């Protein structure tokens, strides 16, 4: 049965609701040999910063029960090398393109946005919530900072802006409302959760938790956020199956992004899109948009 998975996201058509999350898709061309691009609606680059960043010392990634802890530390080549060496291959991909930008100072966001203004990418994602950089508080923990960053980024670039938020906040609604006021076009919930583990006696890794254990937290925060805004929401955290997408839509998300699953199964989008079609068919829907309308979105 031909189930139509296309969705409208900020005025653009995504072939499927599956977005490849930042950090697990490299600069975006590396994964393509593993999957059918038609199974992916959009791809998000690694977070790009103004200057190249070496990232954190190893170990950087550990499996724990129910999740993965990473501490990559925004390792990336910096905006100039990205524009020179990676952008052209990114633009050749058939799906929509999201460039994630970040930094340690809020002034960096508008500067990065300006440099990407004429790049023909589709969306900017502001990484306001990376748990792995040396900073007392995350941008996404301060409503006024979120508001200011988004406002200044919007001034610097006509590109639609997605704000990626942290689960480690007192009330996600306050942060979401600040993003709305700042002019965000969409929200991405959630980034990884700041945690600590000991991978050997006395050997610790501080990092961000992702994977299946994050999904219930993300669903809850999306449901909360949905009470105060109609902005499109990308649901992130533990999407491993077609059923997970249904759950995210039911909580109020408009699309999902895949993160940890790609580390285990680089071809996962193909399977997940197929599973989603099967579920929709079993519910009697011929398209995702019909299902999505039924959830009240």
């Amino acid at each position, binding site marked *: 049965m031909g189930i139509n998975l296309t969705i409208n996201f900020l005025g653009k058509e995504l072939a499927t609701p599956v977005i490849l999350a930042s*950090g*697990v*898709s*490299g600069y975006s061309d*590396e*994964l393509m*040999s*593993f999957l059918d691009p038609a199974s992916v609606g959009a791809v998000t680059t*690694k977070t790009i910063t103004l200057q190249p960043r*070496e*990232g954190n*010392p*190893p*170990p*950087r*990634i*550990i*499996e724990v029960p*129910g*999740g*993965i802890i*990473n501490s*990559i530390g925004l*390792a990336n080549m910096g905006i100039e090398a990205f524009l020179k060496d990676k952008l052209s291959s990114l633009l050749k991909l058939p799906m929509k393109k999201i460039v994630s930008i970040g930094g340690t100072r809020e002034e960096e966001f508008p500067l990065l946005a300006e440099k990407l203004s004429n790049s023909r990418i589709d969306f900017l994602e502001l990484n306001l919530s990376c748990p792995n950089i040396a900073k007392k508080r995350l941008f996404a923990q301060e409503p006024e900072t979120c508001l200011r960053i988004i406002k200044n980024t919007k001034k610097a670039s006509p590109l639609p802006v997605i704000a990626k938020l942290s689960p480690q906040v007192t009330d996600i609604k306050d942060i979401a409302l600040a993003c709305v006021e700042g002019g965000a076009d969409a929200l991405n919930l959630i980034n990884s959760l700041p945690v600590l583990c000991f*991978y050997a006696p006395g050997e610790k890794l501080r990092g961000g938790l992702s*994977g*299946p*254990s994050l999904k219930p937290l993300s669903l809850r925060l999306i449901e909360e956020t949905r009470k105060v805004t109609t902005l499109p929401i990308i649901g992130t955290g533990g999407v*491993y199956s077609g059923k997970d997408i249904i759950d995210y839509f039911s909580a109020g998300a408009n699309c999902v992004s895949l993160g*940890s*699953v*790609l*580390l*285990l*199964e*680089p*071809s996962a989008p193909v399977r997940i899109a197929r599973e989603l079609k099967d579920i929709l068919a079993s519910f009697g829907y011929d398209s995702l948009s019909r299902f999505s309308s039924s959830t009240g979105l």
Partner: protein
Amino acid sequence: MEWNLTVTGNTPLNSSHFLLEIEIPSSFPPPRPGQFIHIKTGEPPGFLLRRPFSIFSYQSEKRKIEVFYRIVGRGTKVLSEKKKGEQINLLGPLGNYFSWDNKTVPLLVGGGRGIAPLHFLYQEMKSNGIEPYVLFGFKNEEDTVFREKFFPERFFLCTEDGSAGEKGKVTDILKKHLPYLQEKINKIFSCGAKEMLKEIYLMAKEKKIACEVSFEQFMGCGIGICQGCVVKTKQGYRRICREGPVFNADEIAWE
């Protein structure tokens, strides 16, 4: 690069070490010594990362590769329960490989399961007419599997408790033998824990002998995307899964 292959053997060698044999199709790219495969040992939510394993041997005529592993955690425990005829999902062959030519007179130095890629290298060198010197170290006699595979006159064995071969760590024994071996060899190849590799490199450097090392590290995607496995080089962090696992030891920023 992603394969669903058949397990044709999974033999216990002692209480904790196993030899896994996997059938490969003719389309499987011929692996080279130093390369690894990234095995999906289980399904989520129990298993969320693949486990990397060096290729222990490759037999093109029999269309099989072998993996030598020790049970160190949940992933390898599950792997040890794989039965002949079961399917296994893997990515590979991945990473770079050891470099050598017909002028190389090698010494292979390994400890524990770090002998895996060196065994493959030994096989390849032998089939190209090179007879490497080999120094392998283990905890005790029980762990000294495969000792019969190596040419006895050029094979040095040691155990930490002295139950087989010379008593001591592999680095102690290398220190003892290098003064006369240095006249015979011109390159050291090694694999194992970083501390051991550093000691080996420092000895090689002192004797002005070239040295290549293969690193072990927790790994994420295995295909260069997540940047989860890195080692610090003089040019900055490099990905073990992509630029490695084999590095010229001179390029490493040893700490």
